């Protein structure tokens, strides 16, 4: 044992405990230092000496000063810090939007409600100017609210941009700090022979935690206690002692927002989409998920409101009787259309290329932005996809010639000029700026169009209960509204029966004329509200304009000798083909076969049997210039469709058949009414008309000098004259008996005759007749001696020697019948049992009707007529539009002769029908393909943002408690506990005192040793 050793042992104890005390003191003074990990002294024994009796301990030494830190707890804390900050930032931003939208003073719902409330008041009292002024004020207030929200949202965007900038520079400077620390740590580690520089490590951990609050980081240890830091998808922020910069740049596709870019090796790489976690991630998420969607939804709301109101407003009349102008500014102004497209910064095509976006159907708009990309190959292939979920909306190929356009989702992208190069991309934002673009264009209250453009009136003379219930303008660009202040033309609706009506052009109320194309014989159902006009834009009508339709032949037919007349129509095949307007598919229906001589009514029926076709027919012929010669043998008989109109035996019949007399006769004859034929006379001309399109046959029986003039609807004339006679009944034998015949040889020569269906008479021939004339005389005598009145049947010999028996009277009621002939007589004269009748000779003409064929949209009619002028129809007859641009509803039970007029609603200042339509917009599902009303769409957005906020609130609270837990975890490992340190103080102080005591004992040992030598 050596006292010096004891001294040394004491000293080691002293220094060791001193170091421990210092460390404890260091811990205590750093209790509140953030990120500090408590340090611990690790003591160990000195190397023992071998002393023969064993190893002698030589004291204590400080092995190391340990930093109590758990890498895993620290990295868990970093992760939780990132997560919490991301959610917290997202929540605070979303919460602001939530507050903005739901607030009464800034939210849209009260604005929209007030606007429609003002419209209601205006609809109730359209002549009041103050009420109209209120409508304009509320509209401006609503536009103001939209603008406020839009600018608040855009301001928010700017704030986000600024925050991104600040955080990016903070990250860059933290990175720089970390790089410097790395350098110091490596140097310090090297100096200390690999023992860790505890405090520097703490500082670095603290910096890393700050960094993770801003963005998610990935920390990788490299040698010598240095770390590399990566962010995003692997971009290096710090490598060794070098730091790289993160900064903000103007947006690649959207210049109103900043993107994050990584600067490395002089190149800038945009990393916005790759950044996650921390405040940065929270801001980017918010911007993409909430801010963009909110701006777009608000914009869509504004655009739908503006287009809906403008469209309805344009159909009405204002206080001055003029059509309503735009209530709000047109959403498709030149500037707005250009603003909706942003070209990518990297596009090769440059500034010459110009695109614009037109809103074509606001109800189809979505709340998403779109990318229009040209990925190639070639520069004509395009892909249109949504930004929010990446769905491809449309793919195709451009035509190559500019201007060209692409339509989808309610928008039409017009490529106006310039050149597209493969690889170009454009950002399409259809609704982004809608909120700002909502501006009231009307300036004066009289310009609000509450009245409807068209009005209907029933005539005071109507006998039925028909009533026009509504008139509505559908399209003010049609010809009907081409003259301001008038309907072109005004209409007269005239009922021809309880279920049919005509619509006529009432420009001159004294003389209404047909419309072009004619609207005749339309069907009406009493007791329900009928829509009187065709309301399809594509509906057309075709008239039979071929050369044969309704035409008089060039000459009349003499009947019955030349057979019966017919209307001259030939075989014709009519084909109806339909192109489905939606699918474009062509389908052909079975051909309609017109047989020669078919009446127009039959053809109309055949056509109406086809799908999408409604045909009606009408026949008309004019008769004038009657001339009835008083001298002459035959009375003039006027026959229509086989029915004799006049009665020549009537003593009151005027010498000159005149149109008035004939018209009255025909009107008074119920047979004609049953056939559907009407007769009218204006004093000069008799107009015969068949409302069903049946043929009209006009015949005259009389002298050759009895004439009249026929005229058809095309103006062609034909003069008809009497045929001049009738024929008797005749039966002629077959043998030439001009040489006479001996009736005494052979026999008996008998025959049985019947005249005019009377009693059978037996006639016997006798005597030897020398000459043919004698034979004739014998026959005459024999007949006269029977009960047949003398002379009623005349026997004669023809120039060819043949004998004939003829009735004395003429006409079709004369008939001879040979009932029975004896064989001898048959041999002699050649008479056989036969019947003969007389005939009335008439000249007759048949006129056919013309057809009017109404067809649904996409239906066309063609005929196989080969000549240029066509048969009934031309080969490709012209289809005229039947769309007048407005609709009339009529209810009740009108009677024949009732009339209704439809005209422009001039002076209609008390009319509020258009106002009713405008107020109905509030409850109409206008938005998103007809699924929600305006207010519901706004409500949906508020709900979505609210749900998002609530969700983020929950998430944030959850991650906050996770963060607190991991913080607690880390603190429980590395945090300083003052009680513990106090205990350590006491412990190490005791140890120090004890070691001091050891030294003191060593000294006294030495003293004792020294004293023993004195």
């Amino acid at each position: 044992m050596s006292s010096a050793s004891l001294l040394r042992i004491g000293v080691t104890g002293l220094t060791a405990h001193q170091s421990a005390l210092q460390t404890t003191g260091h811990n205590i003074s750093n209790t509140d230092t953030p990120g500090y990990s408590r340090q611990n002294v690790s003591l160990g024994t000195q190397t023992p000496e071998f002393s023969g009796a064993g190893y002698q301990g030589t004291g204590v030494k400080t092995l190391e000063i340990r930093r109590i830190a758990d890498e895993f707890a620290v990295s868990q804390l970093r992760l939780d810090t990132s997560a919490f900050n991301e959610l917290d930032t997202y929540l605070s931003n979303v919460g602001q939007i939530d507050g903005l939208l739901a607030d009464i003073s800034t939210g849209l719902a009260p604005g929209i409600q007030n606007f429609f409330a003002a419209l209601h008041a205006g609809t109730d009292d359209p002549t009041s100017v103050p009420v109209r002024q209120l409508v304009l004020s509320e509209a401006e207030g609503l536009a103001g609210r939209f603008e406020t929200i839009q600018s608040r949202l855009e301001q928010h965007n700017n704030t986000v941009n600024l925050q991104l900038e600040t955080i990016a520079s903070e990250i860059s400077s933290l990175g720089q700090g970390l790089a410097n620390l790395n350098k110091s740590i490596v140097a310090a580690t090297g100096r200390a022979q690999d023992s860790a520089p505890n405090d520097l490590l703490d500082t670095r951990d603290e910096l890393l935690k700050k960094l993770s609050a801003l963005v998610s980081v990935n920390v990788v240890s490299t040698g010598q206690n240095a770390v590399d830091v990566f962010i995003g998808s692997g971009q290096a922020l710090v490598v060794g002692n070098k730091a790289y910069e993160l900064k903000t740049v103007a947006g690649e596709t959207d210049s109103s927002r900043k993107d994050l870019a990584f600067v490395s090796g002089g190149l800038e790489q945009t990393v916005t989409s790759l950044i996650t976690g921390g405040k940065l991630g929270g801001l980017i998420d918010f911007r993409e998920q909430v801010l963009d969607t909110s701006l777009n939804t608000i914009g869509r709301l504004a655009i739908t409101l503006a287009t809906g109101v403008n469209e309805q407003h344009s159909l009405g009349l204002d206080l001055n009787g003029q059509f309503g102008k735009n209530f709000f500014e047109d959403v498709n102004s030149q500037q707005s259309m250009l603003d909706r497209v942003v070209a990518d910064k990297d596009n090769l095509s440059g500034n010459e290329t110009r695109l614009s976006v037109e809103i074509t159907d606001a109800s189809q708009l979505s709340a998403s932005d779109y990318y229009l990309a040209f990925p190639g190959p070639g520069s004509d292939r395009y892909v249109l996809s949504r930004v929010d979920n990446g769905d491809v909306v449309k793919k195709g190929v451009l035509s190559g010639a500019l201007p060209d356009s692409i339509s989808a989702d309610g928008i039409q992208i017009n490529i106006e000029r310039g050149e597209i190069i493969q690889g170009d991309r454009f950002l399409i934002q259809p609704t982004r700026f809608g909120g700002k673009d909502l501006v009231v264009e009307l300036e004066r209250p009289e310009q609000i169009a509450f009245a409807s453009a068209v009005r209907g009136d029933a005539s005071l003379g109507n006998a039925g209960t028909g009533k026009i219930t509504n008139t509505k303008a559908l399209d003010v660009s049609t010809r009907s509204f081409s003259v301001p202040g008038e309907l072109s033309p005004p209409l007269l609706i005239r009922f021809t029966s309880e279920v049919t009506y005509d619509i006529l052009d009432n420009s001159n109320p004294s003389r209404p004329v047909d419309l072009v194309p004619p609207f005749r014989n339309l069907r009406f159902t009493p007791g329900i509200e009928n829509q009187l006009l065709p309301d399809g834009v594509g509906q057309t009508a075709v008239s039979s304009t071929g050369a044969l339709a309704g035409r008089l032949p060039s000459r009349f037919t003499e009947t019955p000798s030349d057979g019966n007349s017919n209307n001259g129509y030939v075989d014709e095949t009519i084909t109806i083909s339909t192109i489905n307007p939606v699918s474009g598919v062509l389908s052909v229906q079975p051909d309609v076969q017109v047989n020669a001589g078919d009446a127009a009514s039959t053809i109309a029926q055949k056509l109406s049997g086809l799908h999408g076709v409604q045909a009606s027919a009408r026949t008309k012929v004019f008769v004038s210039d009657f001339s009835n010669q008083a001298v002459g043998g035959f009375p003039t008989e006027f026959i229509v469709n086989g029915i004799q109109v006049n009665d020549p035996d009537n003593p009151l019949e005027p010498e000159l058949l005149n149109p008035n007399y004939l018209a009255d006769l025909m009107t008074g004859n119920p047979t004609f009414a049953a056939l559907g034929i009407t007769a009218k006379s204006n004093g000069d001309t008799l107009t015969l008309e068949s409302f069903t399109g049946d043929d009209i046959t006009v015949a005259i029986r009389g002298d050759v000098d009895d004439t009249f003039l026929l005229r058809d609807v095309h103006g062609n004339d034909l003069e008809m004259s009497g045929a001049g006679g009738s024929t008797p009944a005749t039966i002629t034998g077959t043998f030439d008996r001009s040489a006479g015949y001996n009736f005494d040889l052979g026999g008996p020569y008998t025959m049985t005759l019947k005249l005019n269906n009377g009693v059978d008479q037996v006639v016997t021939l006798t005597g030897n007749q020398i000459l043919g004339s004698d034979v004739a005389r014998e026959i005459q005598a024999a007949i006269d001696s029977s009960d047949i009145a003398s002379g009623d049947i005349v026997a004669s010999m023809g120039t060819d020697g043949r004998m004939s028996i003829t009735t004395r009277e003429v006409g079709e009621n004369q008939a001879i019948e040979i009932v029975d002939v004896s064989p001898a007589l048959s041999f002699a004269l050649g008479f056989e049992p036969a019947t003969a009748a007389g005939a009335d000779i008439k000249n007759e003409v048949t006129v056919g009707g013309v057809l009017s064929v109404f067809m649904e949209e996409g239906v066309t009619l063609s005929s196989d007529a080969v000549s240029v002028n066509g048969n009934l129809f031309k080969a490709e007859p012209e289809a005229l539009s039947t769309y007048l641009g407005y609709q009339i509803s009529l209810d009740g039970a009108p009677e024949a002769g009732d009339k209704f007029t439809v005209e422009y609603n001039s002076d209609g200042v008390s009319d509020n029908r258009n106002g009713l339509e405008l107020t109905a917009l509030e409850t109409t599902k206008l938005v998103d393909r007809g699924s929600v009303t305006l207010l519901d769409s706004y409500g949906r957005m508020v709900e979505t943002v609210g749900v998002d906020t609530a969700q983020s609130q929950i998430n944030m609270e959850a991650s906050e408690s996770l963060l607190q837990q991991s913080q607690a975890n880390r603190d429980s490992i590395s945090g300083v506990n003052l009680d513990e340190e106090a205990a350590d103080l006491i412990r190490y102080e005791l140890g120090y005192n004890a070691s001091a005591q050891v030294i003191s004992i060593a000294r006294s040992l030495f003293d004792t040793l020294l004293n023993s030598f004195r």
Partner: protein
Amino acid sequence: MRVSTIQTFNNGVNNMQRVSGLAADTQNQISTGRKFLSAADDPVAATRILQLNQEIAIRGQYQKNITSVTNRLSLEETVLTGASELLQRVREITVQAGDGSLNKEDRSFLAQEVDIRLDEMLGLLNSKDANGEFIFAGYKGDTQPFVKGGGGGFKFQGDEGERLVQIGATTFVNSRDSGKGIFEAIPAAELNFSTANNPRNTASPPANITVGQIIDKEAFEAFHPQDAFIEIERVDALEPPQLNYTVRRSSDNRVIEGLQNIPFYPGANIQFEGISVRISGVPDVGDSFNIESSTQQSTLSTIARLNDALQNSEDTPEGRESLRISLESTLNNIDNAQTSLLETRSRIGGRLNTLESTQSIHEDVDLVSQDVLSQLQDVDFAEAVSRLSLETFVLEAAQQSFARIANISLINNL
């Protein structure tokens, strides 16, 4: 578990902040009376609240509409009541005039009163509402509906328009009736006709056709229900050239009674088929004037014709007989006119009933909506206050306990 000093403080502070945050929220709820302040607090309820508010607003609008329609209809009813009373008085005069002991002079006094009543009636029919709109003019609110036409008759210048007002989601009510239906389209005791200028006439100032009268009942009855028109023909159709007219039947353009190219003199009688009319003013070539048969006679015409008959009555037997006939038909027409007024008033009554019942339905639904709204968004004060006292209690406990623990440290005992 090892608890570091920082942790002790952090935990304590966090908890105190959390509880005081809750207490602050509750206090906010109590002071605003609302369960939540932003949609995020309960998004589903927030949307429902938006919808309910909208429904209440729309219903409020309907209530306003109901009030204004009720006012209008009440005004109309008042006017109609006045008209009814007036007609009653005219009826009395008519009956009085049938007294055989009166002579021409007496009847002329009666005629004077009828004249005054006629003007009164005209004024009633041209009533305006508070905004200055004529109530019986249909859509032409700024156009006086009934004006004196030439020849003692009256013309209706309005149209048939009826103004609908929305009082419910699918309920619309007429807020006014057109004078045409009430005063013009009244079934007449006898066959009648109306006259009109063709709106396409070009003469300026326009020539007007008078109301006309029936001079031969049987002839007119034979003509009825045909319509006719008088057309001014080209001057060179006559020699020497002068204005001339032709009368034609509308259905077939047939010339009536040979009246073709008859020389025209303004104000001269044009008579055909038992009708006599006059055209005043100078028309242009091509102008035309329509005569339309009808079975209706307007109220004003009835009174005007009575006036005419009383003024022009003679004391001869034929005069008395024709007066008797006139009075009889006048009585029938007045009765028909009264019926028309009554029908209209009962229609108005029906509408007022509808308005009233709709209003009470709206009120009931409103109550329910308000109730639901209150349940959704109003705070339950009892629950909130007791929650607040709990939270403040917890807060105090947290603060006190924290103060205790924070002080305890071994350092103090060194």
